[in-house]
């Protein structure tokens, strides 16, 4: 009885082994004749034709960027005096009364360089390479709690105020699309493009 069971078991195991090797053989054969097929050969059309043509107004409404050469600056103007008033009203609560680092904990960073400050904060005066960036950033992102709420003239005025506070333009200056790109920022000469391209050098 016992031997019989063992025998049957052995036969079962043996046929199992044969079956597995047969399967393995079949598997190999399959692999030889069927390789993974990749590559949809359908040719792409010249254009898919998805999407639609926006109107000129739709583009202008979103096209808010300003480049260093002045491309994108809107019509209008602003002056230091008006900018000071606007700054006090809309910016001082987060950036401090004069934009200078005082040591007080404020939600916004210092905007005006102050050589006396021990922390040597990076500011528009000592770190910003382009005056156009200031116009662009304030128009798109500030005041932090009400972004996009300033008129173009207001942004020109605030830009004038902050540049004057950083001793870059005179108190009587009136800023517009023509003269803003011409302002040379003190930090411009410090900036260099990253020229690393990989490779062993630590730079």
């Amino acid at each position, binding site marked *: 009885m016992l031997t019989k069971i063992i025998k049957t078991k052995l036969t079962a195991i043996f046929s199992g082994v044969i079956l597995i090797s047969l399967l393995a053989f079949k598997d190999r054969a399959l692999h030889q004749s069927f390789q993974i097929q990749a590559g949809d050969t359908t040719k792409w059309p010249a254009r898919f034709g998805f999407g639609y043509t926006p109107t000129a107004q739709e583009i202008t409404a979103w096209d808010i960027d300003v480049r260093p050469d002045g491309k994108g600056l809107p019509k209008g103007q602003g002056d230091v005096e008006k900018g000071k008033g606007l700054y006090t009203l809309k910016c001082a609560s987060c950036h401090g009364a004069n934009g200078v680092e005082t040591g007080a904990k404020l939600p916004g960073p210092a905007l005006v360089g102050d050589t006396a400050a021990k922390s040597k904060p990076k500011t528009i005066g000592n770190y910003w390479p382009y005056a156009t960036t200031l116009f662009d950033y304030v128009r798109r992102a500030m005041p932090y709690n009400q972004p996009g709420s300033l008129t173009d003239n207001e942004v020109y005025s605030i830009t004038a105020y902050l540049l004057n506070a950083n001793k870059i333009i005179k108190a009587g200056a009136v800023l517009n699309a023509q003269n803003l790109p011409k302002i040379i920022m003190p930090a411009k000469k410090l900036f260099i493009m990253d020229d690393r391209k990989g490779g062993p050098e*630590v730079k």
Partner: protein
Amino acid sequence: MKKSDEKHTVSTPTKISRRALLGGMVAAAILPVNTFAGYVQTSTPALSGPGDDPIKIPGPGPSPVGKRSPFENPVRKPSDISSRTPLQDMYGTITPADLHYERHHAGVPVIDPAKHELLIHGLVERPIKFTMADLKRFPSVTRICFLECAGNFRTGKEELTPQDVLGLTSQSEWTGVMLSTIFRETGISPKAKWFLAEGSDATVMARSIPIAKAWDDAMIVYAQNGEAMRPEQGYPIRLLLPGFEGNMNIKWLRRIELSDEPYMTREETSKYTYPVKDKIRMFSFEMDARSIITYPSYPQKVERGWIEIRGIAWSGRGKIVKVEVSTDVGKSWQFANLQGTILSKAHTYFRHLWNWNGEATEILSRVTDETGYLQPTLKQLIEARGTALGGYHMNPVTAWQIKGNGTVLFKVES
């Protein structure tokens, strides 16, 4: 009822009350949640005997959305402006989407995909606006790559976890359309050298990107790890620039303008630039090769004997080719095993077996990428760039101190 009302403490960082666990089971037994519900006795045998033994009581039935085991609690570490991936809790290289790091400059916008559109204009043959449905009709592509914030470096005290040191990196499988497919559709003027990518968050985040990246491997993605991308990662679409600093991978993307010049936005001048000697370096796009041991690390403890050292390594410039591990404070280095398949611009898992004799030491890892770049030490970075450094594009070798009692601490270097 042996001790079902007691607090049950398990050996995980979180305490889970036994009642909470049993609650789930009892609910499963009472509610008709699975096919066998009709046959399940609805008295409460669960409370009267089998205790913790899972083979003595059927568990809860299927559910619409899965949950982590109540014994596991990996969490991001949020601050006011970012949230870090718990790298020390990860066993592989795909970050669960809800643990992907976050960094944004004016919060996460709520965007209705039915109203979201993407405008491509500027130096193109024809400006086009795409709806989400339009974008999803294009031939799609899937790839795995890491993202890393350019400001992903912390030091200063010994009690720092991998999450604290460099938790602003994560990895996902992304799906979307190649940017080149979209540019082919609008046609691009040969004068175009850069493009501006702009988001629809409250800071209207904008960055300039060289056009070569669009022809290389840039994508507009809408899916992350097989499902729609998370809001924190840019729902409904973001730009994906494999290997480039996180900030440039504009989230909540709404506009791309082709241009012959960069725009010099605030994020590429006042921010994401850093002192190199007496100059300020800008337009560092690629994230340099980097690695970190995630096990053992603070606050784990180790025991004398066999330890599998584990970690991740990556490079924004392509594939990594080797990771070396030192268990003797950097005096000698051994190769780690790299988990294949090694992907370009992707976190790669590494492992190295170590028989710790119980003596205090330091363990370190360093990676080499396919350009031949070897991850530098902090000292080498300081020599190359000066002491001011700033916080951007820092990728120094990270060391962990192993104390004689098995405590693991971050090695603060200066």
